[in-house]
């Protein structure tokens, strides 16, 4: 059937073009071709994903990719997106898939909160001259400490991060082997953790990276055995994900290559189907059972993380999860990324992470169980200021996924689900995968974490705080701007000037 959808982008090529065909080579979507008879490059704007790979790699800088100026008659109700989604569904009859986090203009609360700084009445601290502590311990904390030297207070297993930023779950299978390795290397160099997602851990990586790996147990139980669970610093039970709360995942058979199949322990080329729920978890009591089973199989040596999507009753859910014995609670907000999700779910289900952190932190404090569990917040953390604000709202640390991918080259073109990632990140195509140099990508990731850590120290110093510990749940350092009363209430902060 002929597609009636307009192209999203236009490709323009300046006189500088010397027909070297680099763009043709770079584009995995087939937007550039060379016409030999006319000695001319031909553009097919219908195929353009707007990933900018060709523009970056054109040696002459001759290519410009812009949003297409063509439009349907403007209509406040029937936006271009609504019209085109209908056309695509009329053409295919399918659930529309997309990649990356939601691009919808939900209020980004980070941008409506301002941080405090010391002026006169208390001195700010210069992090270049004075020690500044970003080291964070994630896990269940004891109720009380004994100060007698002859009795050690026993602690539950915990994770120690040198900076409160961890890489969130991205599975091998969803992302390429090179991207997966780059995350692992960067985590080990930066004193933090990467997360295997539910794709298992390639066996050759187990011994090298086990101290920096968080391994995931999701509803598909891919690649899981006792050895995998023990080759990790922590085990994460994935209940939900911000981009697709309440639904499972289907890694299409095309992405299940021989090595992906071996790592997930399934036959090559079959769909890897993760059911919507864990079918052994239909209640908090069942969750308690899986948490305990994982603690048993790891001999109580590793903290257990439970990851959920931020949804309406997140604070009550969080209370149940803590009482079920989770050491760390990971919450993923509505803007969280994905390798593939139904568009309608991604753009309509869940709540923003900022509101979720605050309401969960408050609920756990009110119930007197906040110390039993650390909180990792994810889904929409874009910069170091977002990290600081998340911690001031009550998180212990944050997960970054999209930011890490952008550091490696991602331009958020939202074509992850096609498996044709031009940057070699979200693909299993050997040719495309090779585009991502592991050393280079891991260096970019290490640089990003190092830059953010310096910035976090500067912000802390400005507030007169010398340890991230003192920022946690310190909402007094935040003021809202342009927010309604109910939003200030949920966030638990005052308005600017108050």
């Amino acid at each position, binding site marked *: 059937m002929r597609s009636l959808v307009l192209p999203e982008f236009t490709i323009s090529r300046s006189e500088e073009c010397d027909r070297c065909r680099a763009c043709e080579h770079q584009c995995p979507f087939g937007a550039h071709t060379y016409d030999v008879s006319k000695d001319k490059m031909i553009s097919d704007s219908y195929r353009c994903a707007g990933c900018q790979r060709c523009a970056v790699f054109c040696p002459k800088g001759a290519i410009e990719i812009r949003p297409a100026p063509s439009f349907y008659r403007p209509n406040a109700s029937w936006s271009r997106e609504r019209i085109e989604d209908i056309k695509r569904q009329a053409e295919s009859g399918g659930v*529309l898939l997309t990649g990356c986090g939601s691009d919808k203009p939900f209020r980004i609360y980070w941008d409506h909160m301002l941080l405090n700084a010391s002026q006169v009445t208390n001195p700010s601290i210069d992090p270049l001259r004075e020690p500044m502590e970003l080291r964070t311990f994630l896990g269940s904390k004891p109720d009380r400490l004994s100060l007698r030297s002859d009795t050690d207070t026993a602690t539950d297993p915990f994770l120690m991060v040198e900076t409160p930023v961890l890489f969130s779950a991205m599975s091998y299978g969803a992302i390429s082997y090179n991207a997966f390795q780059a995350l692992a290397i960067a985590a080990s160099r930066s004193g933090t953790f990467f997360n295997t997602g539910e794709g298992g851990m390639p066996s050759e990586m187990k011994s090298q990276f086990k101290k920096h790996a968080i391994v995931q147990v999701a509803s598909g139980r891919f690649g899981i055995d*006792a050895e995998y669970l023990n080759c990790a610093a922590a085990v994460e039970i994935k209940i939900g994900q911000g981009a697709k709360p309440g639904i499972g995942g289907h890694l299409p058979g095309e992405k299940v290559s021989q090595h992906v199949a071996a790592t997930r*322990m399934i036959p090559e080329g079959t769909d890897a*189907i993760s059911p919507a729920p864990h079918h052994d978890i239909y209640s908090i009591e069942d969750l308690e059972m899986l948490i305990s*089973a994982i603690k048993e199989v790891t001999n109580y040596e590793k903290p257990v993380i439970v990851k959920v999507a931020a949804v309406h009753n997140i604070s009550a859910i969080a209370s149940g999860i803590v009482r079920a014995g989770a050491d760390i609670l990971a919450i993923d907000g509505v803007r969280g990324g994905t390798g593939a999700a139904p568009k309608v779910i991604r753009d309509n289900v869940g709540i923003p992470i900022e509101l979720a952190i605050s309401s969960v932190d408050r609920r756990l404090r009110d119930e007197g169980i906040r110390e039993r569990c650390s909180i990792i917040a994810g889904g929409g953390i874009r910069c170091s200021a977002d990290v600081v604000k998340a911690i001031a709202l009550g998180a212990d640390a944050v997960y970054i996924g999209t930011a890490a991918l952008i550091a490696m080259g991602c331009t958020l073109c939202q074509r992850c689900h096609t498996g044709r990632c031009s940057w070699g990140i979200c693909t299993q195509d050997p040719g495309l995968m090779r585009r991502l140099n592991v050393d280079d990508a891991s260096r970019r990731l290490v640089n990003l974490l190092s830059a953010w850590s310096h910035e976090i120290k500067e912000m802390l110093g400005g507030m007169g705080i010398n340890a991230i510990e003192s920022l946690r749940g310190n909402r007094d350092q935040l003021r809202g701007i342009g927010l309604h009363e109910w939003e200030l209430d949920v966030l638990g902060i005052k308005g600017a000037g108050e």
Partner: protein
Amino acid sequence: MEEVQLEVSYGRTSNESAIEIDASHMDTRELNSLLRDLMLSGYERAVLRNVCGQRYIGTRLYSPQRRVMTIEIHGTPGNDLGAFLFGHRIVVHGNAQDGVGNTMASGEIVVEGRSGDVTGMSMRGGRIFVKGDVGYRSALHMKEHDQKRPVIVVGGTSQDFLGEYMAGGVVILLGLYGAHTASFIGSGMHGGVIYIRGEIGEEQVNSHVLISRPDDADTEILGSQISAFIERFPDLSLDVDCILDSEWTKLSPRSSRPYGKLYASTAPD
């Protein structure tokens, strides 16, 4: 052999590497710690008496050296018996509860009675033999890879949703004690095979599933697994040829990609 210093009642049996434990006053964690200590100090066989609801028996027994032991259970073990099991052998002289062999990787579980819901869920290797029936959602999302092909042989029948999302492995229902009444068998099945002895109606089986008769290759699998079943339950006095010579139904997935056509891309093809 290193002596284990433990304040629990146990006795040496005639076999040097075997031990008997009275579990009547032990909680889950205590019992599993004891089993782990015993395994690490070289015991190869433990007989547990008076087991009553202790969970995750066998789960704590992962060791990088891949030690294995046999655990005999008298009484009723609790949920998740042999969850994540890594090569050990567990025999239950009685019934078992929910989650038997949950995500087990290898080894064997023998239940001389009934086994509860989600028996063999996400199992990826090893074998489970149940003399009686199994509960709801058994063999859910079982999967296989390379040489690892999990097997569940059930003497009786199963409740609804047998083999849901099944991605690999072999399930055999012998139907020794009555009719098969389960519905929604094989919902979302995209790998593996289920063999059912006795009648099964089309309306009991999900449309993703192809219903056929076992061929010679299937009969070979059936023969070897049923022989193994008979070996474990000699008191049933079964004859393998007699069992094979009955009406058998084979259930297999129509496609390894049941949801391949469900989605459309927001990108042009």
